[in-house]
């Protein structure tokens, strides 16, 4: 089983040269720590920056320079700053090559729910609905099951949706899966996790086709 950093590390392997990437709050944010050496990618944060750098050193924090998680950040050489409408023009206009975000539930048709638990959690969708509706390439980073052990990979989402038929790939603590017209297609197992484990933890349609390799994480 992977921990949060392991999930981030595995997703980092999906990055390609020259990509613009939007990382959501939580596990996705950790991906920036695992960029392969020499690979040029730029991070966008939807509050209005492209070319986001690492967190600042202590005493160098600037209240006027934060990411969408409200964390203090830095700007790299070649960065640019813009307003919220321009930021979502980039997102909606499909100029972002990859979006990674967390989820509470994903359905085997690619629906995603991650913004609301009726009567309980009402934080809002932030930019998530724009991101999932617009991106050609969305990876969901999450744990395979919730705290009670119930699957988060479902036939149908039970929570209010963030977007429909949009998730293309899922990386969990147990597996890498593609979302296909036939359901979740198992691509890789996490170290020490069996196909049976994954079957047991997946409520939605699961396709297991031939031998499923174990992930390689450097």
């Amino acid at each position: 089983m992977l921990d949060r950093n392991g999930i981030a590390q595995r997703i980092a392997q999906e990055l390609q040269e020259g990509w613009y990437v939007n990382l959501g709050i939580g596990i996705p944010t950790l991906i920036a720590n695992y960029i392969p050496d020499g690979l040029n990618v730029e991070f966008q944060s939807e509050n209005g920056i492209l070319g986001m750098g690492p967190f600042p050193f202590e005493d160098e924090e600037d209240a006027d320079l934060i990411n969408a998680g409200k964390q203090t950040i830095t700007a790299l050489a070649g960065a640019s700053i813009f307003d919220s409408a321009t930021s979502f023009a980039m997102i909606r206009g499909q100029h972002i090559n990859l979006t990674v975000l967390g989820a509470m539930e994903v359905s085997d048709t690619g629906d995603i729910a991650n913004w609301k638990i009726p009567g309980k959690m009402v934080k809002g969708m932030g930019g998530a609905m724009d991101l999932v509706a617009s991106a050609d390439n969305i990876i969901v980073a999450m744990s395979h099951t919730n705290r009670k052990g119930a699957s988060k990979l479902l036939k149908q989402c039970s929570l209010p949706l963030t977007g429909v038929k949009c998730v293309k790939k899922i990386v969990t603590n147990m597996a890498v899966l593609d979302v296909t017209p036939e359901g979740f297609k198992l691509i890789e197992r996490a170290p020490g996790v069996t196909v049976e484990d994954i079957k047991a933890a997946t409520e939605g349609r699961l396709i297991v086709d031939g031998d499923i390799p174990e992930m390689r994480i450097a």
Partner: protein
Amino acid sequence: MNKIVADSMEALAGITNDMTLMVGGFGLCGIPENAIAALVKLGVTGLTCISNNAGVDDFGLGLLLQNKQIKKMISSYVGENAEFERQMLGGELEVDLIPQGSLAERCRAGGAGIPAFYTPAGYGTEVAEGKEVKDFNGKPHILESALTADYALIKAWKGDRHGNLIYKGTARNFNPVMAMAGKITIAEVEELVEPGELDPNFIHTPGIFVQRIFEGSHYEKRIEQRTVRQQQSLS
């Protein structure tokens, strides 16, 4: 043109109960601190506030919430505010949650004379309820309408008496689009400068979008998530 007013209280002249206000900022970054403080002092109630977030319990729009001045919030994310959640779940506060990109674009549209536009964001979710749906390039989109406000309260870094503004870093965020969408836009700046000091080529908000401007004071610029990395060892 001289749009300078003396202070935040003078800037707010004309704001009365039950009005709709836009308030710039993302989280606590780039919020009009002086105008919000003056609104608390003014005590107007029944406000509809359009703002990406609702501040935290003791700062930003949270101050207006504590003071029960807000009737309705139109936002995209309100997760940092316990009083907000309490008022909302208790039915005291109306809330319209809308996707962040749609919020930004609806403000811009309001300022740009575009009454409605199509976006894919929110299709198939509760955000789409009651909205027109139309396919473009085989993909469903929903029709979103423009937002405007009686007053827009925004914050910039520097400005001149024509109302020209520049912002600093990610404190820009929603401020430029809300400046466009306010029937009366009130800009507070950290520094008022003479016309000509701002290079015409690098002005973020042209003065035409701003009706009143004043130099704010005592900016707290609170950081919500102070996050740092370790200094590298010198070896």
